C-alpha cells in the first residue's frame, strides 16, 4: 500500500510540472496533466502485474 501511495504522490508532482510547462491554455494544461498522471498510474500498475508472474 505504501508503495502505491508513493507512486501516486510521485505521479501527482511530476504531472503537475509536465502539465504546466507543456501546453499553452489552462484547459490543455489540466487535460495533459491528468493524462500524464493516468499514464504513470496505469503503466505502473500494468508493470507491477506483469512482474508478478516473474519468479525473480
Amino acid at each position, binding site marked *: 500500500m*505504501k508503495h502505491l501511495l*508513493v507512486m501516486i*504522490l*510521485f505521479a501527482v*508532482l*511530476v504531472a*503537475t*510540472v*509536465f502539465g*504546466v*510547462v507543456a501546453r*499553452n491554455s489552462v484547459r490543455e494544461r489540466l487535460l495533459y496533466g491528468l493524462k500524464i498522471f493516468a499514464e504513470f498510474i496505469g503503466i505502473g500498475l500494468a508493470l507491477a502485474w506483469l512482474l508478478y508472474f516473474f519468479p525473480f
Partner: protein
Amino acid sequence: MSLREKRSETALTETVPGGAWLIGLLGWFVPGAGHVAQGRWGRGLLIGGAVMAMFIIGLAFGGHLFPIGDSQGVSGWSPLLQVPPMIANLGAGLLYLVCWVTNTGFVEQAKLETFEYGNTFLLVAGLLNYLGMLDAFDIAVGRKP
C-alpha cells in the same frame, strides 16, 4: 527554401534578450521564481511548489544527494558515475546548495526502507526544475505565451 534552411536562418537571426538569461538563472536558483518574476504567479507557484515538495519528501524518505567534486575515496573512472546524478541534484538550485553548505542529506540512509524512493524524488526534483527553468527562459524570449 527548405525547412532546414529556414530553421537555421531563424536560429541565426533570433536575438536573445539579456534579461532572459537572468530569468533562466533565477528559475534555476529558486524553483518557480523565473515564472513569478515574469508575472506568471500560478505557473511559478505550481512548479516551485512541486519541485520543493519533491526535494523535501526525498530528504524525508532518506534519499541522499550526490556531492560536487567529492569522490569519497573512490579511485579510477568510478567517480565519473557520480557526475550525472550530481548534475540532476544540482538542478534543485538553492535547495541543493543549502544542503551542500550545511552538509545535509549527503549520507546514505540505507536502513530506511524508503531510501531509494528518496533518491528518485531528489533526482527528479532537480530534473523538473531544469524543465521549469527552460520554460521560464522560453517565456522571457517570447517563444511561449
